[in-house]
């Protein structure tokens, strides 16, 4: 108990509380700008943490990342441009809701269920850290392969267009992920001797290009749409409680999936959102409503990506193994502040650990008032003339991606993918599926090749390790399900 009192004492310092507040505002702004991801928000904070006390330093990272993942939903819902990759999975859904005249509902869902998801993730960190960490340590490359493969299959589930076009887009994404030398053999592929291409195509510039720049190009090609009838933005939280009661199952499922994916090394909030959105669709009683502005998928995926944030800290704190790209940076800061990750952190520095939990809870609670202010401010873009918004978006994309890699090559990448995204959309190929291919491509290849090297080319370990076997069964079932369903339907038709 004394640890808990001490922890409150650590958190209730002016510098820590100020750090939480400022980092939250910062995270909200950065997350809502296309081209600046939650990871980027945290990376930019690293130099500042140098000058802060240990608890304040960790507080900035926790608050900024939680806010950024939520506020990535804002431009997604208002402009169909996801602010971070974690929002890409359900951007179309949220935007459809805005077109239906319910932007406050879409954004309210993002805010409310993000906060609940974040708190659920924190509880998992507090109560289940040791068993979750042991689960993470059971994941070898074999299990990672199945996980990445399952992630790839979400492409067809999420897309509203024909599955064939979704698969084609995803394969294009996989091809893009081949560029560079970060492959198991360390061999340059498709680099043409250009140094910048050695680093490969990063997810952020590609994402910004296919979503934001192509959206601007579409706007240039078409006449200004009829203005949405002017009206006051309604209450943001009003219907959330009803939705919470109505969609208990998707929400709980989203939290659990988010927690599990967050704990696993190499998979983070992006993948959590994809998997949860497609699970929501698969298990929904009304899958046909998905993509038309239906809250179910938003609830599940919005809860999931924020839940994964907190649980990503479990392996980071216990073993210094990052659960996602954000905790990879956080581990460096923990070391720098003398909070060396490891089991001793939980025993010898228990008060610091409790302080960390308290910060997580505070961050997820103040997300609600700050988020409401942010939504109200951001909603003005709906009333601004398109000719004013679009150039600003292009400018933000260029500045944001330049900051990501500190080089102009990223800006060129954005431009190139803008054109690619535009052409794809014109022809009915979903760009989200391509982004998924780029995100998962490296993981699929790495885990497959390294697994086969470990097993001397045998595929048996993909099936005879217990966790791998379960994942393999899930993957194969998901693969065969559409075939079986189709076969069943045609048989019934035939017997009639």
């Amino acid at each position: 108990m004394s640890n808990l009192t001490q922890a409150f004492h650590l958190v209730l310092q002016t510098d820590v509380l100020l750090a939480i507040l400022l980092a939250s505002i910062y995270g909200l702004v950065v997350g809502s700008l296309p081209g600046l991801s939650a990871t980027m928000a945290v990376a930019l904070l690293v130099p500042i943490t140098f000058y802060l006390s240990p608890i304040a330093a960790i507080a900035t990272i926790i608050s900024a990342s939680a806010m950024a993942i939520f506020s990535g939903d804002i431009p997604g819902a208002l402009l169909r441009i996801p602010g971070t990759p974690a929002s890409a999975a359900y951007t179309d859904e949220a935007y459809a809701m805005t077109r239906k005249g319910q932007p406050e509902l879409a954004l309210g869902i993002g805010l409310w269920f993000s906060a609940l998801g974040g708190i659920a993730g924190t509880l998992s960190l507090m109560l289940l850290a040791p068993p979750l960490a042991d689960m993470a340590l059971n994941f070898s490359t074999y299990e990672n392969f199945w996980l990445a493969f399952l992630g790839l299959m979400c492409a067809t589930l999420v897309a509203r267009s024909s599955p064939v076009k979704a698969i084609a887009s995803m394969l294009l994404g996989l091809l893009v992920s081949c560029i560079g030398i970060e492959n198991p053999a360390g061999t340059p592929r498709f680099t043409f001797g250009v140094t910048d291409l050695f680093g490969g195509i990063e997810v952020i510039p590609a994402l910004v290009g296919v979503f934001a720049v192509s959206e601007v190009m579409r706007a240039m090609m078409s006449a200004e749409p009829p203005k949405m009838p002017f009206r006051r933005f309604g209450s943001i939280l009003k219907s959330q409680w009803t939705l919470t009661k109505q969609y208990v199952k998707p929400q709980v499922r989203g939290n659990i999936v988010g927690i599990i994916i967050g704990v696993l090394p190499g998979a983070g909030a992006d993948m959590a959102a994809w998997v949860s959105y497609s699970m929501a669709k698969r298990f929904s009683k009304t899958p046909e409503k998905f993509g038309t502005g239906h809250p179910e998928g938003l609830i599940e995926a919005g809860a999931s990506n924020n839940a994964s944030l907190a649980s990503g800290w479990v392996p980071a704190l216990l073993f210094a193994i990052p659960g996602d790209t954000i905790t990879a940076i956080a581990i460096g800061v923990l070391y720098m502040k003398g909070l060396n990750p490891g089991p001793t952190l939980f025993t010898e520095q228990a008060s610091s650990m409790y302080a960390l939990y308290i910060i997580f809870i505070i961050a997820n609670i103040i997300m609600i008032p700050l988020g409401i202010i942010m939504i109200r401010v951001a909603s003005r873009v709906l009333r601004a003339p398109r000719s004013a918004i679009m150039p600003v978006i292009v400018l933000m994309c260029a500045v944001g991606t330049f900051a990501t890699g500190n080089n102009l090559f990223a800006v060129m990448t954005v431009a190139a993918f803008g054109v690619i995204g535009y052409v794809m959309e014109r022809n009915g190929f979903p760009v989200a599926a391509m982004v998924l291919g780029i995100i998962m491509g490296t993981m699929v290849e790495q885990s497959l090749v390294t697994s086969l090297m470990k097993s001397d080319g045998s595929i048996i370990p993909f099936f005879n390790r217990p966790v791998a076997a379960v994942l393999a069964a899930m993957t194969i079932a998901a693969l065969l399900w559409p075939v079986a369903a189709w076969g069943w339907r045609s048989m019934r038709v035939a017997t009639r």
Partner: protein
Amino acid sequence: MTTRTRREVLAGGGALAAAAAIGAGPAFGQAYPARPITLICPWAAGGGTDATARIVAAVLEKELKQPVNVVNRTGGSGVVGHAAIAAAPPDGYTLGIVTVEISMMHWQGLTELKPDSYTPLALMNEDPPGIQVNASSPYKTVKELADAIKASPHGSMKASGTGQGGIWHLALVGWLLAMGLKPDHVRWVPLNGAAPSMQDLAAGGLDLVTCSVPEARAIIEAGKARSLAVMAAERNPAFKDVPTLKEAMGIDYNSGAWRGFTAPKGLNPEIAKQLTAALQRVNQSKEFLDFMAARGFGVKWADAEGFAKFMDEGNKAMGVAMKAAGLAKG
């Protein structure tokens, strides 16, 4: 905080642009340094090299009385950032932290850059590899592990620590060669660095991992892995009970990942001297030493001349090791 970070980013970008505009002609008549300095780090924020760059930048800032901004130019396993350092104008306003990879990548044909593509300033750190096994592994000493490796069929045992041809791969190759075995007697599984390798070791996917002991620390302390030996001349003071390879097996093989500071080639010798002197004061500062001790990183010092010699010798040794391992091109 929002405005501040964004301003810093813009300032970093602005500094780059200004440096490019001014070109090779430093502002004569003004005492160096007259404006902020950019320090390029070829590895991502949050990693060991980034941390080293940032602590050095923080202390160097006090020495030079000018801000030192760390800019991460990542990607391509270090190629992109190392190229950016070499291509910057040699006016003393763009410096870089260079890592052991600079003496390896050109042998693989990945870049034209070699250690002598830079103006060396100072060597600050070196970390030797340790040999780690799973906690439930039957091998209690490095001798037992070595005997098991010798008795095992070619390629049946698996190791990792980093990607193909990375520094920890070369460390394993060097150890195998020193034992009179083939360089690929233990198969290397390329993984994305030390943390994923240690995780796979704990998950039971690998037989051993060669990476520095600080990188393996958390998993060892969690009781999931053991460190059997370090490939260094001396034990690591932070891990006193891990013997050196020489103590345990009588094999005198040392290796290590190092980090040093350089400027683009063609830097004014006066400025270079001033920077080396400032870096020496950083190397002896309490702040730097405390930080390195807390992380378990090895502190090393060599001035410009010593660093050049160190890189040259390391470069030749790497060439021999990489050719033996079949990793070198041409």
